[in-house]
């Protein structure tokens, strides 16, 4: 059996929850004050997800373009996503919501621009 300690992010309480696990199976969650904490702990222990935001350089523009994953991706893939983005080169113009990198690292999630940069 393993134990994981997780800080809840749903409210400023920041409950420190202990999750007892057997392999991938969750046996018990303690320390949460409300139901939202339990749901969060379950997600964090099975498949934690994160949005990734970054900037990508654009040829001919001083300012790089800011980008994000359209939806959260598995936390374990953050570094791979950043690495993939570091190889991306863009040209003007770029519009908000343009796909900058489709299906990043096989996550099925596109990386999209979050601002418009005109020539």
């Amino acid at each position, binding site marked *: 059996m393993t134990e994981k300690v997780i800080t809840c992010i749903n409210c400023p309480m920041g409950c420190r929850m202990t999750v007892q696990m057997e392999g991938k199976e969750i046996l018990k969650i303690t320390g949460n004050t409300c139901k939202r904490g339990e749901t969060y702990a379950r997600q964090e222990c099975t498949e934690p997800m994160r949005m990734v935001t970054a*900037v990508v*350089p654009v040829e001919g523009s001083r300012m*790089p373009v800011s980008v994000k994953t359209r939806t959260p991706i598995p936390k374990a893939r953050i570094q791979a996503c*950043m*690495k993939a983005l*570091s190889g991306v080169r863009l040209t003007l113009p770029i519009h908000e919501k343009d796909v900058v990198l489709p299906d990043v690292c096989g996550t099925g999630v596109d990386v999209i621009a979050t601002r418009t940069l005109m020539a």
Partner: protein
Amino acid sequence: MFDILIVGAGVVGSSVARALSRYQASILVVDAACDVAEGSSKANSGIVHAGYDAVPGTLKAKLNVRGAEMYPSLCEELGVPYRRNGAMILAFSEDDRSTLKKLYDQGIKNGVKELRIIEKEEILALEPQTSPEVVCALLVPTSGIVSPYEMAFALADHAAVNGVEFRFQTKVDSVRWEKDHWEAETNQGKIQARILVNCAGASSADLHNQMGGEKAEIIHRRGQYYILDHPDVLPFDHTMFQCPTKMGKGILVAPTVHGNVLLGPTAEDIQDPLDVATTAEGLESVLKAARLTWPGLSVRTAITNFSGVRAHEIHGDFMVGKVAGHAYEAAGMESPGLSAAPAVGEMLEEIIVREEGLEKKAQWLPAPVHPRPFNEMTDQERQAAIEADPLYGKIICRCEVVTEAEIRAAIRRPVGATSVDGVKRRTRAGMGRCQGGFCSPRVVEILAEELHIPMTSVRKGGPGSELLVGTIQEAMAKEAEA
């Protein structure tokens, strides 16, 4: 081969360079640092002392009084902010009264005018923020304040427009006389000159000894300061000293020419003249002592702290004059070195011209005209300035209201800024309450453009102080390798 090599580009070296630029001679000024006024000249109290403090008959007394006389018109000529705000030396006990009396007598002997010992009521009437514990004070109406580094920049610029060359990051390791000239070994190679002038501040004793003078020794005395943001109303108009001790003039509370409040300095003897760190104890002692003068002091408005190192020669007086054949100096220039600087230039000019038989140039160009800072212009002047140069309409530093036009001009000055700190001291961009938080990225961009260097090569100060380590792509690539 140069005719004259001046070692040190502080306020003294710059003053000497300007004085000698009237003559037919090729002049080179070298400095180990990356800009003018990087040593004691940039980090001191900025006081033009009246001259009551020095022992009568010493060079300190003579040059201080003469220098102070020269300041008002010289600053006018050079466009340097200067104000005769007057000073008070406060006594907090009857015992201190005798010290004040001694200073008064000294001042009279040195030729300082308008000195007066005043009592508590008058002190509080003139400066209501003063501690009610005060007993009496020496009132010194002729004391002034100046921006010390701006003084040095202006002197250097004036020298440069008259042909003086400045080389920075050039550290003189040794000097020796070779038949008919001086040879200086530097980190940038050998420099030859017929005449050598030592204005090397903290290193001036070392150079003095190599030039063949009687052994001199310098003690490096560090002073720590606080700067407070400019308040709507200054707490004190006068420079407020406390009764001096043998380590120095004590902790002062003073307005600066730019309307900030200065507290300090401490006096600590240290080994390394480049050790300009501040310490928790030092800063604490500044506040503690400043509160004696100003009980209402709050550090909430502190915007920065800094320290400077002054070069105290153990014999106690300035060393100004001829050291050996074709070798001259202005060494041991601790306080009142800033006050004396113009007079030191004048004195060395006179000696060197006499000894070396220099001839005046047919034409000596006037100091370059600096437009009034945008921050001090009237609306009409601002409108005209923007019409003439639209970059006056671009405010880069919000706290001190400095425009892009002024920042570019500072970089293009005869001895121009090459770093963020250089821009800051020449324009005040980044001197304000946010300490460059907003403007430094823009200043970095402008420096890169003006100097034709990549953003990553722009420095805060000297080599090794680059502000940016690379582009984000480079950082990622490096990590991938590692």
